[in-house]
């Protein structure tokens, strides 16, 4: 689009783009928040604050910490590319992806136990699998997006002047963490 446009439009694109991108991303987050709110309220409406006894609390705390750590490394990778530290960017993004995979593995492990203790046919199980499943879907898409920016960053894209894709992806990763902040107590602690 922009390439073929006359000069006036090129000017318009340059001034508007970053701001539009950022606003669009935050609107998307707002929308996502409503999706998660719908699912979390479904959990409280159907099963109150009940939690079964067989929950693997240490594992849940563990993956919570892992996700928190991945948020830090994501923060550090954005910070690195913003200061043209490409090596740091690649290192921290790799760590983030690794921690994301560890989190996913933790979820898989947890589901195997959970399937035996409270299958999906129980009301807590319904909420548990739906909510964690929704979150895990976001984790997996986040890992894919991180993989794309890692690949492109490694090929020399992005720099302190233009790192919007990194910023957007990292913000998305923080959103995943943000939702877990609410989901974790909703399912395990309350």
């Amino acid at each position: 689009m922009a390439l073929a446009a006359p000069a006036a439009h090129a000017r318009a694109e340059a001034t508007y783009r970053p701001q539009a991108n950022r606003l669009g991303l935050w609107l998307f987050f707002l929308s996502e928040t409503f999706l998660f709110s719908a699912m979390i309220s479904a959990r409280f409406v159907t099963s109150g604050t009940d939690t079964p006894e067989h929950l693997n609390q240490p594992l849940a705390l563990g993956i919570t910490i892992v996700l928190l750590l991945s948020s830090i490394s994501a923060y550090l990778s954005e910070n690195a590319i913003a200061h043209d530290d490409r090596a740091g960017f690649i290192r921290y993004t790799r760590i983030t992806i690794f921690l994301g995979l560890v989190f996913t593995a933790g979820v898989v492990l947890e589901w195997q136990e959970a399937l035996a203790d409270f299958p999906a046919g129980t009301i807590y199980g319904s909420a548990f699998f739906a909510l964690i499943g929704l979150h895990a879907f976001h984790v997996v898409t986040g890992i894919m997006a991180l993989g794309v920016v890692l690949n492109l960053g490694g090929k020399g894209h992005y720099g302190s002047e233009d790192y919007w894709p990194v910023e957007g992806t990292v913000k998305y990763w923080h959103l995943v963490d943000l939702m877990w902040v609410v989901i974790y107590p909703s399912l395990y602690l309350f």
Partner: protein
Amino acid sequence: MDTDEQLERPVPSSTQQEKVRLGLIVAAALAVLTLIEYVIAVGIDDPLIWLLPFVIAKFALILEYFMHFSAVLGKGDH
């Protein structure tokens, strides 16, 4: 994007190291809050009311320091 932030803040201070330190401090705070949450949940029956402040605090910390939420409000209109 960086230039925008510099326009907003009078002092061009945020060097990489300072931002790293800020991020680590926030992360440490989040970790501590999470652990307190866990301890409360293990110790108290029906801890909903006690946990809510922690959830809100963690939510706000991530939103502000990791996702720079206030930046989007500050640059809302043009």
